[in-house]
């Protein structure tokens, strides 16, 4: 069953269109994460689902019913804001009970639901406190609890962890993951720019850029088979290296050369392309290893080295290119600034994109 359906959703402020027709089908109970660079429209899209922004055109349905013109409160949604948005003059209990009180529910019903949510989030000892007497993590738990009390069909998170410090972020992320396990019927939409959150929490990730969907898929699909250069560079940290390469021989197994070492044969069908066509080769930093000049696909002079113990990140100046090359080498590698390095990756780790940036599918 469909939890949330977006059909050709557009948003314009005056004449400026910021979302150019979003189509998305989210299954009931699915956890979907919107990621994208700032300004890509992911928060706007979430706020349109919430009913806080008007929909310029298109259809938005929740569990099959069109909700385009329903006010936020009638859509069966609950939202957790980046800044918690707790009511500062109310206790934790009152914060969580606010929605049900507005809906004029009975005191017993309110108490039952608030206590359930408080127990689920270990908030019982804090119920009589004001938000200012809570830590950041506790505040965010209250905000989540307030959303749970609404018993929503769709649970919306707007960068809920970005105001927390690193340790709390990990802890709260695990709590959200637990919540997802417990609330199997609730569709969840989560906006973030943090890849780790996206990769660990999502059933499916939606990558947005400049008001359009770039790709929708499970975290590993996006990592292994990015549909275009944008997604390839956006997912994974450090970002994928993309360098020009020449198609030496278009065939069922393409042969390419980056102009450095030997030709490499990759299991990518390029029969529709011409020999000699200019392509883009993508290699993830973690797939690179040191190599001899003749085996290498990449080369460069060491700009600086970050030794993290577990891995060593090497930033290389890619001669003649604006982007630097980053390699994540395992263990501790002794390297000097200015040293010339050759790098290679095994053929099955290479990604190929055409000149327009679209992925050539692996066989």
């Amino acid at each position, binding site marked *: 069953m469909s939890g949330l359906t977006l059909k050709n959703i557009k948003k314009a402020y005056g004449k400026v269109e910021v979302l150019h027709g979003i189509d998305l089908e989210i299954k009931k109970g699915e956890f979907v994460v919107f990621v994208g660079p700032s300004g890509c429209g992911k928060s706007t899209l979430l706020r349109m689902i919430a*009913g*806080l922004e008007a929909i310029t055109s298109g259809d938005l349905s929740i569990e099959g019913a069109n909700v385009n013109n329903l006010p936020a409160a009638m859509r069966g*949604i*609950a939202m957790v804001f*980046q800044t918690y*948005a707790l009511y500062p003059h109310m206790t934790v209990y009152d914060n969580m009970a606010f929605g049900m009180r507005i809906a004029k529910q009975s005191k017993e019903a309110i108490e039952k639901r608030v206590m359930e949510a408080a127990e689920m989030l270990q908030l019982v000892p804090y119920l009589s406190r004001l938000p200012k007497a809570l830590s950041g993590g506790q505040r965010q738990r209250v905000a989540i609890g*307030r959303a749970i009390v*609404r018993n929503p069909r769709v649970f919306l998170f707007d960068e809920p962890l970005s105001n927390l410090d690193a340790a709390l972020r990990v802890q709260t992320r695990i709590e959200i993951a637990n919540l997802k396990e417990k609330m199997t019927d609730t569709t969840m939409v989560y906006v973030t720019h943090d890849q780790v959150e996206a990769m660990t929490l999502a059933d499916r990730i939606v990558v947005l850029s400049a008001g359009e969907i770039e790709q929708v898929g499970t975290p590993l699909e996006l990592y292994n088979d990015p549909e275009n250069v944008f997604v390839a560079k956006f997912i994974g940290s450090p970002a994928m290296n993309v360098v020009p390469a020449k198609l030496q021989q278009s065939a069922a197994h393409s042969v390419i050369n980056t102009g450095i070492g030997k030709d490499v044969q990759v299991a990518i069908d390029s029969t529709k392309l011409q020999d000699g066509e200019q392509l883009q080769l993508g290699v993830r930093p973690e797939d690179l290893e040191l190599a001899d000049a003749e085996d290498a696909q990449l080369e460069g002079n060491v700009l600086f080295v970050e030794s993290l113990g577990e891995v060593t990140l090497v930033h290389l100046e890619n001669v003649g290119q604006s982007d630097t090359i980053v390699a994540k080498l395992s263990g501790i590698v002794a390297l000097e600034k200015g040293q010339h390095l050759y790098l290679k990756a095994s053929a099955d780790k290479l990604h190929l994109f055409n000149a327009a940036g679209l992925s050539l599918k692996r066989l």
Partner: protein
Amino acid sequence: MSSTTTIKSPGSMVNMRQSALTYLVHASVLLLVILWTLPTAGLLISSFRDKDQLAVSGWWTSLSASEQNLITRTGAPDTQIEKDGRFILTGNIADEGKSIEIIAFGGNSRYPMIAEPGELIELNKGIELTMNINGDYQMTSPVAFTGSRGKRLFYTAIIPPMFGLDNYAEVLTSEGIGQSFINSLTVTIPATVIPILIAAFAAYALSWMQMPFRGLLIAMVVGLLVVPLQMSLIPLLRLYNDIGSVFGVGAKTYLGIWLAHTGFGLPLAIYLLRNYISSLPREIIESARVDGANDFDIFTRIILPLSFPALASFAIFQFLWVWNDLLVATVFLGNGEDELVLTARLRELLGSRGGNWEILTASAFVTIAVPLTVFFTLQRYLVRGLLSGSVK
């Protein structure tokens, strides 16, 4: 003793110059505080002084004893006793149970203070008078004293400082200040509450409700801040009288002055409250909207409690302004006993009792007691409310 202070460094010169400037600032502040508070202190002290002392000496002498020329009478002639052929009136001029210190006395209005205590002076017709330093007197005459009243005695006494609440008791009861106090409250409380209520609603709407011409409305409200009150008083009064006569409301009534003060207070109120309310975090309001609250719920349950500092700060402004207002009250309210506000009563007392300092000072203090109380109880909101919005 301390070795570090003897070391001169370029840094210490800077510190010295800074501290000189700091002293200057502190001295100026002190001077200003004294300039501002001294008259008030004088007023306060004067209001508690005895009215006779107040008439002859300034408040700064109030703690030292004062010399006063006074008149009293001897005991009545029926208390005279005859002794050795002379008729004697004797007694003490001090009030029952009190002591007095005499420095001069006399028995004649033409030469009132001719004798020092203990001297025997001769008045006309062989009457002799003597008075001791403690006020014991003896008047003797060769013929019997006649008449129903005692003879006049003139004396200069040193009176110790006297303080009391007599002045307050007098102005509150017999001078009509008590009634005016109630009248002033009757004007001020509604004239403070009504504009706050209206302005809070307006400020919410102008901050958080989408509507056409919102910016223009805000600009108009801010523009009204520059309209001088004096210019609009009479047109407003005529308008009110015309409309009032349609509804059968009298010309000079409390309703009129409430509305006038509301009108004059609203632009500032809306401006201050809008600045505060629009600075409240958007997420809180959106969160309430997702929770199902409509605009009225959001206003009453979220905005009003959170804007308390701003509401309090404007309430202080409006309260003080209305309480201290004379002009609007003169125009919009009558002169009857149950309509005269404190400021108008004070002005009236200045005319009719201008010489009676004890009445004026006590009345003035009754008048400023309420503003002072309001200010001191709510001052933390005043500062917070003024800064809020500008400093986050």
